[in-house]
C-alpha cells in the first residue's frame, strides 16, 4: 500500500500528514474524538544523523505534551545511511537517541505504534519500527537485517545454498514472514479491511512488558530466547 492510501484508510475523519525529505509528519483522527500523531520515514529513505534527529525532535515534543494521543510511526526505509560524515557525527548516538525518544513517548502515556509498510533494515530498523511499543505490518513489507547476496558474500556461501538454508529456518533470512515468526511483529494487518478499525482494536489492547520473545517461541521462529532471558533473570534474582 502507498502512504496516501494507508493514511486515508487510517483516518477517515481526515489528516494533515505531509512528506518532506523522506520524512512524514502531521496528525490524523481515527474518529472525531481520537487524534493520532503521525511521524514516519518513507520512500526507502536511509536515515542518517539529520533524519534521526529531526524524527527524535518531533517525537520528544509529542512526548512532552500532557495528553495521551497515540503516536503512529510509518516505516518504509533503507538501512541506516552508510557514510563517513554520519559516522563522524556519531550516528550511533543519534539512532539510539531516536529509539530513546520513542521509548520516552510510550512511557509518557502515548502509545507508540510502528506500522511497517515497506522496507527497513539493520540499524534503521532497530531505531524506528522495532523501537515502537507495538509493531504491526502490512503485507508486502520487507524488513531485513541484511540482504541474501550480501550475506552470501560475508558467509562465503553461495546464494543457492543460502536460499536453501533459508527455506528451513526463519532465523536469518529476510522478509516479513521470517521476522513475524521470530516475534518482531505483533500483527500483520489486512489491507482490505479499514486500517482505522485495526488500529482501534490494537489500541484497545493493553501493552505490558516486552513479550516479543514469547511470540518467537509460540510462532516457532525463536525458541530459546525467552527461556534463556528468564533463566538469567531468575539466577540473578536468586543470587541477590
Amino acid at each position, binding site marked *: 500500500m502507498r502512504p496516501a492510501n494507508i493514511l486515508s484508510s487510517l483516518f477517515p475523519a481526515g489528516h494533515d500528514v505531509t512528506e518532506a525529505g523522506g520524512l512524514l509528519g502531521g496528525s490524523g483522527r481515527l474518529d472525531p474524538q481520537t487524534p493520532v500523531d503521525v511521524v514516519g520515514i518513507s520512500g526507502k529513505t536511509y536515515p542518517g*544523523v*539529520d533524519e534521526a*534527529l529531526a524524527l527524535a*525532535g518531533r517525537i*520528544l515534543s509529542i*512526548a*512532552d505534551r500532557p495528553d495521551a494521543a497515540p503516536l503512529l510511526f510509518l516505516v518504509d526505509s533503507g538501512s541506516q545511511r*552508510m*557514510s*563517513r*560524515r554520519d*559516522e*563522524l*557525527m*556519531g550516528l*550511533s*548516538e*543519534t*539512532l*539510539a*537517541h531516536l*529509539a*530513546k*525518544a520513542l521509548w*520516552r513517548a510510550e512511557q*509518557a502515556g502515548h502509545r507508540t505504534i510502528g506500522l511497517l509498510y515497506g522496507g527497513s533494515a*539493520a*540499524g534503521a530498523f*532497530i531505531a524506528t519500527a*522495532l*523501537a515502537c511499543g507495538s509493531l504491526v505490518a502490512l503485507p508486502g513489507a520487507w524488513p531485513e*537485517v*541484511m540482504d541474501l547476496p*550480501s*550475506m552470501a558474500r*560475508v*558467509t562465503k*556461501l553461495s546464494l543457492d545454498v543460502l536460499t536453501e*538454508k533459508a527455506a528451513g*529456518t526463519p*532465523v*536469518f533470512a529476510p522478509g516479513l514472514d521470517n*521476522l513475524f515468526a521470530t516475534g518482531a511483529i505483533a500483527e500483520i494487518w489486512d489491507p482490505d479491511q479499514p486500517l482505522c478499525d485495526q488500529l482501534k482494536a490494537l489500541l484497545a489492547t493493553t501493552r505490558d512488558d*516486552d513479550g*516479543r*520473545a514469547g511470540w*518467537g517461541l509460540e510462532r516457532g*521462529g525463536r*525458541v*530459546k*530466547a*525467552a527461556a*534463556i*532471558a528468564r*533463566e*538469567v*533473570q531468575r*539466577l*540473578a*534474582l536468586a543470587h541477590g
Partner: protein
Amino acid sequence: MTSPSPTRHSWYEESARGRLAHLLDPGSFTEFLGPERREFSPHLGLFNLPHQLDDGIIVGTGRLDGRPVLVAAQEGRFMGGAIGEVHGAKLTGLLRAARQMKRDVVILFDTGGVRLQEANAGELAISEIIRATLDARAEGVRVVGLLGGRAGCYGGGSLIAGCCSALVISEQGRLSVSGPEVIETNKGVEEFDSRDRALVWRTMGGKHRYLIGGVDLFVDDDVAAFRAGAVAALERPATLDQAVLTAEQARLERRLARFGDAADGTEVWARLGVAHPAGVPDLDTSAFLTIATRKREGADAAR
C-alpha cells in the same frame, strides 16, 4: 614472570573472562548460565560453524570497588562478538533483573553487531536489550558501557551503547554503526578507505568520540584504568527523563550545527580549538586529556 611494562596490562588484548577478572573485586564474580550449562547457539551448525559454550558473552554478578553490580562481557574473538539469539537473551535477562533489583550494570562491549547466521534473532535481541536497558534506567539503574575491545562496538551494539547512562572508552575503542568495510563495500573506497587505519580512528575511534562528547570518560588501554573508569562512570547520574532527552536533543543538534559540514575528524578538532589537530592521534593519554578536557564537547548528563 617479568612484565615489560608492569604498570600496563592491555584491556584490548585481554579475553572477555580476563577483563572481568581484572575489572571486579577479586573472587567476587559469579557467572549465570556459564559454559558448563552448555546454552550455546542452536543455529551455527547449519553453517558448519563451531559454537562456543557461552555463546560469546559472559553474564553474572560481582563487586566493583565494594559495590555490587551485574556485569556482561562480550568476547570479540568469537564470531567478532556478534549478537545472536542466546547471546542477546542473556544480556536481556540480566538487564531485566537489574531493573527488578535496582542494581547497576556494567557492559563490556566487544561486538561487530548482529550475528548474520541468526540475523533476525540477533536484530530482535538488540531491540529487546535496548528496551530492557531503558526500562532499567527508568528505575534509576545505571548502565555503564566499557568500549575498548578488539572487535570495537559496531552495528546494533553501538545502538545499545548509545542507550547506556555512561560510556568509558580507550583510544583503541571504536564506536560506530556501519563499520569501515561496510561503508567501503556499499559506497566505494572514495567514501571510505577501510585500509586507511588512521582514518578509521579519526572517524570512529576513542579520541574522536571523547572529543565530541559521544562518551564520558577516556582511559588508557589498561585493565586497571578501565576499572577506575567504570567506578567513576557508576557515579554519574542514571536519570532518563524528558529533561535529559530534551537536553540530548539540543546537544546533538548543536553538534550538527557546529561540525556538520566538517570533512574530517581533524577539522572537527580544529573547530573545538585544538591547536594541533593532526597531532592528536599521536598524543599519549595524559597529554591528550590535558587538551581534551579543556576543549571537548561535554555530554553533561544529556545521555
